[in-house]
């Protein structure tokens, strides 16, 4: 393969990966004057993972999918320590909503893509590598995160969800909650609702 065509294939693959991620990332807004806004990722079965600081103390939030469908989701479980929340979408909102599979925490230096809604820019993409981990165990990336990315998806090269975008540790250094914490939340919610 020539060098140029390799780069083109890589670029096309990345655009295709972003397209798939964008379809599974929803907008989340909580009602009220001081309502938060952010993103969330559909994990299948109507379950959307987002950040606890996006939903605040709300029991219900508004969700808008990439196709423009709007619905109300109930806040099913919250893990404040991990800054995670799990939403349950109404069945009619889930019919054509693609989901991302949960992956494993990415290795140092691995390529990652971040998709969220920074500054109201819906489904904006950024790419980077895994820079390291912070003391809270979050994955740090140099993908350019901004307010509004919260709750968005950090995916690896296989398109699996490997982090929930949560913090800006420094300019151009974003932190994502690791997939183990998402699994723990899913298990906890499953135990409650099982």
């Amino acid at each position, binding site marked *: 393969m020539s*060098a*140029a065509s390799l780069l083109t294939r890589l670029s096309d693959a*990345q655009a295709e990966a972003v*397209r798939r991620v964008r379809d599974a990332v929803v907008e989340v807004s909580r009602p009220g004057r001081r309502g938060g806004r952010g993103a969330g990722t559909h994990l299948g079965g109507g379950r959307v993972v987002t950040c606890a600081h996006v939903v605040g103390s709300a029991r219900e939030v508004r969700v808008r999918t990439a196709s423009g469908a709007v619905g109300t989701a109930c806040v099913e479980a919250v893990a404040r320590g991990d800054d995670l929340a799990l939403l349950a979408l109404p069945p009619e909102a889930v019919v054509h909503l693609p989901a991302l599979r949960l992956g494993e925490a990415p290795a140092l230096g691995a390529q990652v893509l971040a998709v969220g809604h920074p500054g109201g820019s819906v489904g904006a*993409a*950024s790419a980077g590598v895994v820079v390291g981990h912070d003391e809270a165990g979050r994955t740090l990336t140099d993908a350019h995160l901004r307010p509004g990315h919260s709750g968005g998806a950090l995916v690896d090269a296989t398109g699996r969800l490997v982090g929930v975008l949560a913090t800006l540790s420094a300019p151009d250094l974003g932190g994502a909650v690791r997939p183990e914490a998402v699994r723990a939340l899913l298990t906890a919610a499953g135990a409650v609702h099982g």
Partner: protein
Amino acid sequence: MHADSALVAVSDALAATVEAVAPSVVRVEARRRGNASGVAWSADGLVIASDHTVQRDDDLRVGLPSGEVVPAELVGRDPSTDLALLRTEADLTPPTWAEVETVAVGHLVLSVGRHDAHAQTALGVVAQRDGAWRTGTGGRVGAFVQTDIVVYPGFSGSAIVDARARVIGLGTSHFGRRAALALPAATLQRVADMLAEHGRVPRGYLGVTTQPVRLRGDGPGAGLLVLDVSEASPAEAAGVIVGDVIVGVGGETVHGTHDLMAVLVEAAGETRTLEIVRGGARQTVDVEVGAR
């Protein structure tokens, strides 16, 4: 392909892409602090750059990829799209341009700039794409293309390059904090053509002072009440009088002054049909839109 060799191949391909485009990227010396970048627009010496980096009209210099520094003159500038066209006597190497429609969100892009002797680059992706938009000062840009490229000193005027080493636009940081936008090639073409011909982008005008008003009854609901008509203006020549309410121009509804500016801005020298309400009755008048 082995994983190691794939990484080496990607890295080499990125370097080769920069090397392919760098001969088309020049340094623009036109402001007090810090140089910026520009891209060869024609083989006979035209350079396209960011207007906000061209802070003076005279004593301009362009640093060529060969290292030579040549004098340049300002052909024209359009602050509304943040574009400026410079002329040098140098032989330049224009890049291969590509329509911005060929890139999607997530595609790889490189910026290639030259704010000192050497080219510099940064890697990113297309962060967001949308349709045509207007800048805060009324400039029309054919497509919204935001990248996640880090805005380094001299980024403005850099070439935004795709994985095929084609330039999809000119980088600018002018339209928002840290937002590295690419002004698409088609917009550069339109503005550069006007700058080459007129030295500026002619703005259409009617010569009226207006105020937004609400209209009762069925109909447009709102319009612009004409408070004054300038002497010898296009509006006066068309027979527009004080008290008319402009509700449409050229088939576009006009509710506010921003609507009127938007439909006039690129109609200079052309005839447009004004839809007005006069004495409660709707009528139309043709006006030849002025240029200034």
